[in-house]
């Protein structure tokens, strides 16, 4: 069970308190009617699913209830950074960027 730091609560809490929210930075197109079917399908269904660092959403559902973003290395299941929703993805530099 992971320990996940909540950027709003400012502390690490066990994974039990959180709900996974899928890949982060997949913004809903501002005007869905203006994009074609392929672009909409891309938004709906396609995710990067990397082996390595993934920006993903978590919600501290049994705590503050808020969504935040997290950089996690999917290969080692290691959390590298957490940041609030709306903030840009942090640059981890060389080590975390693989």
């Amino acid at each position, binding site marked *: 069970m992971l320990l996940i730091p909540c950027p709003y609560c400012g502390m690490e809490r066990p994974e039990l308190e959180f709900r996974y929210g899928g890949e982060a930075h997949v913004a*809903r197109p501002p005007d869905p009617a203006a994009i074609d*079917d392929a672009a*909409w399908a891309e938004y709906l269904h396609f995710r990067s699913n990397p082996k390595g660092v993934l920006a993903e959403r978590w919600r501290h559902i049994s705590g503050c209830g808020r969504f935040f973003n997290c950089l996690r290395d999917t290969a*080692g299941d*290691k959390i590298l950074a957490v940041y609030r*929703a709306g903030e840009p993805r942090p640059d981890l530099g060389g080590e975390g960027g693989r």
Partner: protein
Amino acid sequence: MTQAFRVAGGAAVDRDRPVSFTFDGVAYGGYEGDTLASALLANGVRLVGRSYKYHRPRGIVSAGAEEPNALVGVERGSGRFTPNLRATQVELYDGLVATSQNRWPSLAFDVGAINDVFSPLYGAGFYYKTFMGPDLFGKNWAWKTLYEPVVRLAAGLGTAPTEPDPDRYVRYFDHCDVLIVGAGPAGLAAALAASESGADVVVCDENSAPGGSLRAETRARISGKSAGEWLEEAIAALGEAPNVRLMMRTQAFGYYAQNFVALSERITEPDLMTDPDLPRERLWQMRAREVVLATGAIERPLVFADNDRPGIMLADAARRYLIEYGVKVGERIVVVTAHDSAYRAALDLKDAGAGVELIADLREDAPGSLPEAARAAGLRVATKAAIHEVLGRRRVTGVRLAARPFGMRTFACDALLMSGGWTPSVHLFSQSRGNLVFDEGLQAFRPGAPVQRERSAGACNATFGLAEALAEGNTSGRKAAAAAGFSVREARAPGVEGAPPAFGGTLGAPAHVRGDRRLKAFVDYQNDVCVKDIELALQEGMRSIEQVKRYTTTGMGTDQGKLSNLNALAVAAAAQHKPMPEMGHTTFRPPYTPVTFGALAGPARGDLFDPIRRTPMHDWASDRGGAFEDVGSWKRAWYFPREGESMRDAVARECRTTRASVGLFDASTLGKIEVVGRDAAIFLERMYANAFRRLEPGRCRYGLMLNEAGFVMDDGVVARLAPDCFHVTTTTGGAPRVLAHMEDYLQTEFTDLRVWLTSTTEQWAVIAVQGPKARQAIAPLVEGIDLSNEAFPHMNARDARICGVPARLMRVSFTGELGYEINVGSAHGLDVWEAAWREVERHGGCPYGTEAMHVMRAEKGYVIVGQDTDGTVTLADLGLDRAIGKTKKDFVGKRSLSRPDMLRGDRKQLVGLLTEDPNVVLEEGAQITASAAPAVGSPALGHVTSSYRSPTLGRSIALALVAAGRSRMDAKLFAPMSDGAVAATVTAPVFYDKDGARLDA
């Protein structure tokens, strides 16, 4: 029976506390401190079990967790039977009742042993071949009547208990700075070093007492003291340190991410008898800042023909039985070895007065200091040995071997001790996701670089010498404490004398055993896997060790190949002429040793397994004999049978009464969300397909929620109570999902909106009063509202006072009748319900349950999301697309509605089905086809989603999703069932009051 094999010594046993126990009904004596294995050996019991497949007689091989053979059931009264316990770890207590397994009618005479004769039939891949065996007489007859029952009867371990376990199990979350797994020399040295820093240290060990190999250390001196004295002082020092917890009988069985280690602690039977409030086991979910693994090493068996006969034992296990328990495993002993450490066993046994006939070393030469000491003590040492035959069946009586200098000879013996060297216990390291590296010099896998905040020390790190293990433990303890943020002093590891280094070891099978299909040279005792099975697996095309494992079952079972994995790997490598590292190794998975379901379940059983949600009116329904059904975690009143009524009768009466006069229904389980704020209406417009901006306060709308893919996700009535306040209802099961969905969009997409969401499901009790007399029924209870149809029409909501308490009264209907839903605070739910019931009763009404609700809504064609939809259904499929707010530019799911697939003409659409025979009720889930006897493989047109006997119509009705259903009106379709197809006619999905006049009464 006397303990004929008990000799002097044995620090673990208390000679002043004799105990008696039974094994397979025979009474024996032992001492407190014995394990079941040591006590059986003391009594001369050698045959303790039958093997899994061939039912071969088996004895005790080891003295620890790695035991593959001596698995027993321990009976502690009804519901307290535990199968598959390792006798080597079962602590003896007075009155213990143990039984052997996998034999019938008795251990000594086992009918299943015939399997040994037919063993060529049970070779590698036996199960696969059987599962795919000839299908005699068709329809799986052979499998069902022949193969499976035979396999199940013949192969197996212990039987599961049939009674519920009456014991209590608890679990804890815990934290520490340094967790040390293993309280042998390395672990204790680590604990002593880490404890000085003041760090919170936990030391756990699977055994009943700390010390590990030190407990049988007879020769070495540590810091000038005997090993026993040093151990006592170390334990005392740790016991006095307030920051150290020494947890015995505690197995670290799983190592997970971020140093999360699962420990299971067992409480002894005597402790439980003294204090019945104790739990049987404790599960500790330990989060450690730093971990030191000091899990030791396991001695490997040698692979030779019939190496499984009772009396054949690991050399160091025999030494431990002697030193720790005062039990001599034989009078005439032959030692076969490829490692120096077995010479220690021979020396100790000789000192105890056992006759050591021969030490036969497989190596060319045995020059080490231990072999020298053996020779100096007058023991006969032969080298370049090859074991050709084991004599004796239920007990070893001799061994025929070739060795230098005497050639081939037979030696009589009653114990044959073996050592193939030592395998580091890297299980937990591997579970921590660390990679193993193969050490060519040691011929062993050892831990590579740590992946987590962890370090290995001692024999598990292939650091075998006592001095070296103590030093590495010391260093690891200090480093762990420092890494956890504590300041540590440089402290020297204790000095060691008299512990000469031990070298050697062999892997796999010697040449004369390989490639001979006649020999039963066991690699895996527990799964009855021989060298020839692994060779056969490779010959039949298996290549990787993972394939070989699955095909032969080597390394499976309760011991997970603790003795066998490395030998199996080496046999497979040799057969393919590949170096060991190229074969890789199988995955080490938790648990290290079997963990009881009780420990894992903890208190989560019975009433505590899952929370139960009850409405405020639950007891009223229960008192009136209401039957309940589970809906999510809710208990809902299902129907209210009167004396002598069947469910069918009761449901029919409830439907008829409601339609004729009035019915009372508990709808409290409906999900409720309060949506408030300046932008509440805009938010709901984006979240629902419907338009809400122009909905007047005091009005309700049937809201349909789509997911972004355009499919129906939830539905419910939305009432606007004020310009900035909406009372949203959801399906009973959907409330958490809908709230999470709304929060997601509110927090991450529509962040410009000022809206607040609050779950109010449990705040409101909901009393539905439905039927033509509903208005008269509630009128006496309601203050300050004109209930007339003109002033308060269908789909309106009002704040009101009902029975004197604040309420939200909604005129809504899920029955198709004139109806109201009274929302009052949960605390008033029962009072208001009882008041409403008095009125309903006065008008000849009745309470109705969820079944009647379902029937009535189906008569009206009202869908239930999740029953008539399955996540692939659109509003257009349901015929509900008129609900879509036409002028809305965007809402969640809208864009998907114009994707080509959503516009296809052959999408499944909701229709009604009326069976030709009105008495036949279709099965929900039944497939719908165009012909009565469709060809095999032809696709179905759709399926039945809801089906009931309609009391109102006096016939069966059904709803179904059927491809292009609305273009098939009046067509005859079929539901093929096992006893013939049911013919039905397609209709509109509304069966009653099609124009809805009753709603507006």
